């Protein structure tokens, strides 16, 4: 039987993979994918915990909302990346240091 | 309105007018200045004519005998436990100052005319000039030590700027040297002045006072105070009164100037513009002599008596040292500056003798030197303004080129070297007579001093005649060639008009020394008597 723990482990692995991608990759698109992975880990947790909720299927509904929101933010993020590329001719975050003090 | 007050403040009034007028009217500034000085001269002549020269108006240590007095409370502060601070606007003159006043006023007129050659920043120049005028006249009139000191310090400021801004190539060096030298003297004078203030009480009001005439009376000194004669206080192991005298003497000796405190003079003179040279030599040096008579001798007669030998020795050294140095010069202005040192040495010698002849001779010498040095410096200015060179070796045969100028040069030179018929002769002869006589009258100076002093007269002939021969006689030969020949035109009417009154004064004082001696005699006698009483 698949227990909550199994879900949690999968989710944690997903989360950590995403985090690793965010910190280490030199491509903004990859970082975006990392973010998506982390988001999906969170959604997985949401669905898994939804079983223990008093209201039925509320987890799944929230998950649906989150997926839609994630798609929206990804669209915005891709637009930003596109603009960054236009501006800097690169999407390597190491070379975009205008956030410096 | 008190005449002396008018005399003092007339120039500064006109100075304010100049400050207010717009710069576009700068052409009128010199006329305003000239008018101010002429007005002042008129006042001073009026004062001279109305000055009462009898024994009842001798002045010196008697307040009631001063003339043209004005006494107003100026700064009165109630200091609570420390009593009341009493500073007065107190002016008045006696025989010692009256002739110097007239001399100053005339020299100022000449200096005003000489400043027509100034071309830059006229407003500043004439305003400072008139401020200076006020200060020097004020010094001769002030009878309150604080007022005296105020005027005395007030002279420095305009002079510093006049030399430092309108001077020659090394003007900053000269101006700062002059400023520091005199400041060095006057700062310590301030200390002595405060010491005197704390030692003297006005017998009427019972307050401490800066009144110089009251400082002359030993009775007004508070028992046990620093400068009291009876209390024998000491400062750093030396008698306090001696210290006070020496400090004041140094302050005035710098002005006179006495060797070895003279080195500011050649530099200041060489760098200063002609009108400032005139004021420096004509008036400023006399303030030193006047200060020694009025303040050093007046307030510390006992120390003056015991230190007379040293004063006389310094006088002799100044006479000889200045003369020898003048002999070694090749810059005409520097030569005249050193000759001033030599001639002012006679003043010190005469004062040190403390005889009537000596002090009269000293005052006469101051007046005479006032006119003569003015003339000499003006004459140097004539050549300098034409070719901007003063080196004696660069000229020869000027007499052929500038005959009128040479006549005035000869008058000035021979008058300065003590040719009878000119003022310096009577002054120097009687200074020496007083110095010689001193041993018999009061035993202050040894006989040999007068004899050494007379060698100065010989040397003055040597350097003046050498200059005449080298620079004015012989065939024409100029360093600047034909260009100079064209530039060296004979003196014009303005210059002649300036020189003529000076030459006439030098001649008049030589033929009628009573013009000065008649006015000063009673005061000098009173001073000598006062000095003998100690």
């Amino acid at each position, binding site marked *: 039987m698949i227990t909550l723990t199994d879900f949690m482990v999968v989710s944690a692995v997903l989360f950590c993979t995403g985090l690793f991608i*965010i*910190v*280490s990759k030199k491509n903004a698109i990859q*970082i975006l994918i990392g973010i998506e992975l982390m988001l999906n880990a969170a959604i997985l947790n949401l669905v898994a915990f939804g079983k223990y909720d008093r209201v039925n299927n509320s987890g799944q509904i929230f998950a649906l909302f989150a997926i839609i929101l994630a798609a929206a933010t990804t669209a915005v993020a891709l637009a930003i990346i596109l603009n960054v590329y236009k501006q800097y001719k690169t999407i390597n*975050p*190491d070379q*975009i*240091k*205008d*956030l*410096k*003090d | 309105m008190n005449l002396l007050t008018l005399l003092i403040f007339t120039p500064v009034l006109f100075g304010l007018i100049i400050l207010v007028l717009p710069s576009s009217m700068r052409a009128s500034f010199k006329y305003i200045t000239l008018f101010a000085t002429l007005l002042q001269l008129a006042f001073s002549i009026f004062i001279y004519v109305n000055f009462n020269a009898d024994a009842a108006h001798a002045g010196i240590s008697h307040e009631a005998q001063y003339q043209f007095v004005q006494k107003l409370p100026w700064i009165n502060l109630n200091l609570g436990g420390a009593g009341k601070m009493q500073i007065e606007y107190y002016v008045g003159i006696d025989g010692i100052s009256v002739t110097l006043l007239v001399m100053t006023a005339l020299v100022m007129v000449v200096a005003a005319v000489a400043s027509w050659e100034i071309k830059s920043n006229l407003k500043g120049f004439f305003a400072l000039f008139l401020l200076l005028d006020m200060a020097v006249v004020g010094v001769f009139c002030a009878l309150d030590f604080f007022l005296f000191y105020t005027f005395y310090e007030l002279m420095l400021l305009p002079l510093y700027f006049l030399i430092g801004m309108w001077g020659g190539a090394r003007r900053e060096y000269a101006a700062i040297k002059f400023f520091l*030298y005199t400041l060095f003297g006057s700062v310590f004078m301030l200390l002595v002045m405060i010491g005197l203030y704390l030692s003297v009480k006005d017998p009427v009001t019972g307050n401490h006072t800066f009144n110089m005439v009251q400082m002359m009376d030993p009775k007004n000194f508070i028992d046990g105070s620093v400068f009291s004669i009876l209390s024998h206080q000491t400062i750093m192991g030396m008698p306090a009164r001696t210290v006070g005298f020496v400090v004041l003497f140094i302050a005035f000796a710098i002005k006179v100037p006495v*060797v*070895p405190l003279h*080195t500011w003079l050649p530099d200041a003179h060489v760098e200063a513009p002609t009108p400032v040279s005139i004021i420096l030599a004509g008036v400023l040096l006399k303030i030193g002599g006047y200060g020694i008579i009025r303040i050093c001798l007046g307030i510390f007669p006992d120390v003056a008596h015991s230190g007379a030998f040293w004063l006389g020795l310094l006088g002799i050294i100044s006479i000889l040292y200045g003369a*020898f*140095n003048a*002999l*070694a010069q090749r810059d005409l202005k520097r030569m005249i500056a050193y000759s001033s040192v030599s001639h002012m040495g006679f003043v010190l010698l005469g004062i040190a003798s403390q*005889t*009537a*002849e000596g002090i*009269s*001779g000293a005052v006469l010498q101051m007046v005479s030197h006032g006119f003569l040095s003015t003339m000499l410096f003006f004459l140097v200015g004539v050549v300098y303004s034409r070719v901007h060179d003063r080196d004696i070796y660069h000229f020869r045969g000027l007499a*052929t080129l500038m005959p009128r100028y040479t006549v005035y040069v000869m008058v000035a030179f021979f008058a300065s070297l003590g040719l*009878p018929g000119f003022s310096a*002769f*009577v002054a120097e*002869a*009687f200074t*020496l*007579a*007083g110095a*010689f*006589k001193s*041993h*018999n009258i009061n035993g202050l100076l040894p*006989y040999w001093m*007068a*004899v050494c002093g*007379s*060698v100065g*007269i*010989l040397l003055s*002939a*040597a350097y003046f*005649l*050498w200059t*005449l*021969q080298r620079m004015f*006689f*012989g065939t024409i030969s100029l360093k600047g060639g034909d260009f100079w020949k064209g530039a060296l035109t004979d003196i014009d009417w303005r210059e002649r008009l300036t020189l003529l009154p000076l030459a006439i004064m030098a001649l008049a004082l030589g033929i009628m*020394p*009573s013009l000065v*001696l*008649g006015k000063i*005699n009673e005061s*000098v*006698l009173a001073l000598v008597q006062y000095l003998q009483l100690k």
Partner: protein
Amino acid sequence: MKEAILPQELQTIYLTILIVLLPFAAFILNFLFLNKSKASGWVSTIAILISSIFSIFVFTAIWNGPVIHVQTIWFTIGDSQVHAGLLLNNLSVLMLALVPLVALPVHIYSTAYMKDDAGYGRYFRYLSFFCFSMLALVVVDNLVLFYAFWELVGFASYLLIGFWFDRPAAVQANKKAFIMNRIGDIGLLTAIIIIYTLFGTFDLEKLFGAEGFVTRYSYIENGTWSFYLNHVLHVPVSRGWTVMAPHTVTQIPAIWQYVAFGGIFLGVAAKSAQFPLHTWLPDAMEGPTSVSALIHAATMVAAGVFLLGRVYPMFNTTELNILAAVGCFTAFMAATIALTQTDLKRILAYSTISQLGYMVMAMGIGAYASSLFHLVTHAFFKCLLFLCAGIVIHQIKHVKEDNHLDIDPQDLANMGGLRKKLPVTFVATLIAGLALIGLPLTSGYLSKEGILVQAFEWAELKGGAFMLIPVFASITSWLTAFYVARMILKVFYGDMNLSKLYPNITIHIGDGGWRYQLPLIMLALCSLFPLFSLNPLAHSGWLTGGLPQYGQYTAGLVELMVPVIINVGSIAMLYYAYMAYIKQRDKVAAQPSLLHRISFNEWYIDAFYQRVIVRAVMTFSKALYWFDLKVIDGLVNLFERIARCIAGAAAWFDKYIVDGLLHLAAALVAYIGGIARRFQNGKVQYYLFSMLLAVIVVFILKILIWNS
């Protein structure tokens, strides 16, 4: 202050004032109005003419008559009044008459002599000024005025020596003359001051009169010179003398009496060109010859002797002996120098020095009257000699200019044979020359023999080494005969040397007009005996009768023998010179001999002064200036430097220590900030990483804290 003046005295006084002031008026007139005009010469001449006429009136009124002394207060200094006044006694009226009488011919002569000069007006201006000063000098009654005019005559002489101021030699000479006279002046001034200190007055009559303070009421005892006044009460108040309290005693150390003498001696030596201050006079010949005649031969140089006459009672025996010795030495030295000079005017200048030496010597031996007598006779004949020399030089100069030669018109070598061309000049020179030698029938004989006779008598009384003085005076007299003969022979006898040297030149010369000849004739007449004594063989004249004699003499054989010996010697010298120069029998003193060199180079005295004294003074003054610049001003600048060093140190301290602490704090903050700002490197991933780290750290801490 004085009793009523008699009317005739008043007239004399006014005349005297006029005599003095007329030349002055001429001076002023010339100075102000007649600057360029030829009239200036005549203004001056007329002034001096009137002065000379008046001076004869005054002379006759005063000579051997009452002394006139009037004064008025000039100025008051302290307790003493300085007077200005006239003192007319025999001595002063003698000079008062002499000066315009000599000046008049010189003026007339000058109107011709200077007529082509550009500075004609200036010349007469100066000349009148000189006459005024000289006349005032002889009549003033006190030492201050005496000193004043004493220096003014020197000043006039300065102006006239340097009359051609574009000639370097002339301006060198006038500078030298004035400075050497200044040495004498300060001596005189010192003497005046000493006298004033002791006696409290400058009045000549009060000091040196018959009842004068110096004469009667001062003495030297125990090393002090005392003035002691308790007799003065006897003096008539009416004569303007102050009555002082009895027993007034003023004293100064006796040494100052000698210093006063020394001062007066210096004054005399400078003015009358005595050794050691004589060197200015030969150089003074750079002036116009007429000036040399008036100032440097007749009048001004005699002022020194006049001064001796004025203050004579002051000297004691030692001092008189010094005067005699110096005078004698000067006379001898100058005569030896005159022997070899080639410049006509220089010969005359040294001759003047020599004769002045005679006068000073005569004063020294007590022959007061003879000294002044010689002064008067010498004034005439020496003036005459100079005027003649002037004509000769003027004519040679004409030749020079006409023919464009390059010669020195004053050199004896260019003269000779002028006797026929210039007859009047020749005769006048001859008379003056004989008077200078002192041959009988001339005025020079009368005065000079008087001095020599008295010198021998004086020395006879004293004995010993004093005998040297009359002996040397006699030798000088013979030397005089020789150089006068040499000069006259070389100028007037023989052949014209110029024509020999330059065969094709034209020579048009002559005595000149009446303005040249009249002065010569006037002066030549005054150089003969009748004006002074009817007996041509006496050795005194009526002049000496009016003046006091101070020496004691034993009339004896000397009186007969001396004139004879002297004159025989002189004539022998004349013959010798005639033989030597005209007949060429004998070579006189071979040229390169040592003695000749010493004589020709004027005993090297002037060279000594130039090389040693002048140079020493100049070096000393340069050294003092160096001292002033480097040591005194150096000290001032050193102070400045020290102050600057201290200020520099303070500035360093301020900059690096005080400010340093502040900067350190700031730097520390900046450093820390620098570390902190490294986090802000703008890398998004870095931010995220650090965030992650922080979260992990928080968790780790939380776990650790919870677990513990």
